[in-house]
């Protein structure tokens, strides 16, 4: 089997989308890893639904004793570290920030995305139930929604499809998806294959992608 990018490599590629001054919200899973790969010195301000901006990294096991505090966690319930200049606010203000369009980039997990840019990521597969959480507000209202996901499910089912088969998080919201084999942009004419993992061909990526891909003129290998 061909080699695919690791979860860390996906996060690393997404980190390159950040810029000085960016306000970024990271979902649970691969998205959380993104902050580890943002270049040191770049001023990225992280937002979490539970009411904080400008906090630092998830604490390491070594730091647990000294730093872990139930009153400083991210949206996934992980302990994070304080940073100078951070601030706290209540949930209505937190979603005023989201709904008001202040989030430059949100990185979300993906169950399915459609060629129209629909995202489905909240209903647990096979359980008939799901948690909506803050993801729906983020997907509807962020300036850019970036998906972070394996290109297919563990059992090989396609995730980039013509039409989502499960309840949507938001229609027409996706800007880009970074998978373990490709970087794909959502555009008006359709999905544009922008970057491809080392050793993979366009045809191989197309085979694992239900909608027809438009190959970018400047298609290149994924740089990390």
């Amino acid at each position, binding site marked *: 089997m061909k080699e695919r990018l690791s979860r860390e490599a996906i996060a690393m590629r997404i980190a390159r989308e950040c810029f000085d001054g960016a306000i970024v919200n990271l979902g649970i899973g691969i998205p959380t890893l993104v902050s580890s790969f943002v270049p040191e010195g770049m001023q990225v301000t992280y937002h*979490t639904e539970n*009411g904080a901006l400008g906090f630092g990294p998830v604490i390491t096991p070594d730091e647990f004793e000294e730093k872990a505090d*139930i009153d*400083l966690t991210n949206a996934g319930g992980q302990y994070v570290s*304080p940073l100078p200049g951070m601030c706290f606010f*209540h949930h209505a203000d937190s979603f005023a920030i989201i709904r008001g369009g202040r989030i430059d980039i949100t990185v979300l997990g993906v169950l399915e995305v459609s060629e129209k840019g629909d995202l489905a990521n909240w209903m647990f597969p096979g359980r008939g139930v799901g948690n909506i959480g803050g993801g729906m507000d983020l997907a509807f*209202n962020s300036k850019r929604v970036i998906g972070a996901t394996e290109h297919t499910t563990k059992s090989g089912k396609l995730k980039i499809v013509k039409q989502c088969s499960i*309840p949507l998080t938001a*229609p027409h919201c996706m800007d880009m998806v970074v998978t373990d084999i490709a970087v794909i942009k959502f555009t008006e004419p359709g999905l544009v294959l922008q970057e491809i993992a080392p050793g993979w061909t366009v045809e191989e990526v197309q085979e694992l992608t239900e909608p027809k891909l438009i190959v970018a003129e400047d298609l290149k290998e994924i740089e990390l």
Partner: protein
Amino acid sequence: MPVNKIVETFEKAVSDIPDGATIMLGNFAGPGGTPFYLIQALHKQGAKDLTIIANTAGGIGLTLDFDDHRILFESKRVKKVIATFPFSTSPKRPSAAEKLIVAGEVELELVPQGTLAERIRAGGAGIPAFYTPTGVGTVIEEGKEKRGFNGRPYLLEHALTADYAFVRAYKADEMGNLVYRGTQRQFNPIMAMAASITIAEVDEIVGSGEIDPDCVVTPGIFVHRIVKVTEDPGFPRHLETNFQVKDGGAR
């Protein structure tokens, strides 16, 4: 005569809650900001047919295990829950709420988190309804009025209020003014404003004037009863500090 809001025990603070009450409670992914001593006292008190409004339905298992409102579901005290994250993230450990919801024994109103927060905020602000973009074109729009403003579609959402709010805060003064510690704040301040009777569970009660009036988050008029936590539940916490870190210096 100053109104005395300080109540000696959690049991006493929840003793008048009747069957059928609607209760909002501060809650997010972990124990921070959850008033679990009030929840445990309510569980002991026995009120049933409750409507619970909270981020989760308890026991979602994202962090530590602890007795949150999961116990109200386990003992079948809940008729309806309005939540955004009602299910355990682990299919192997379905929460008590999940089983009851799937079995049709508890009614679930599943709400996007921002809409939940805004509906509670509206309830406290005397706004009966508002429009939000979130949910258009998803299952959330079912049965709701859809309407365009400036060329974008929005859904009409209605305010939420409650008979009681259980809030978790850091410090209260005798007037009921509250300050919160870090992400403990979450839903607590907006719930305090949306309920007829708000009961605050706090780490410390100080005299009037001990809290800087520019730093008060919840004005005391919204807080009717204050109870101090006296046990140490053993969660990782550094109550002696806030989260202020100065440039170049350690915490």
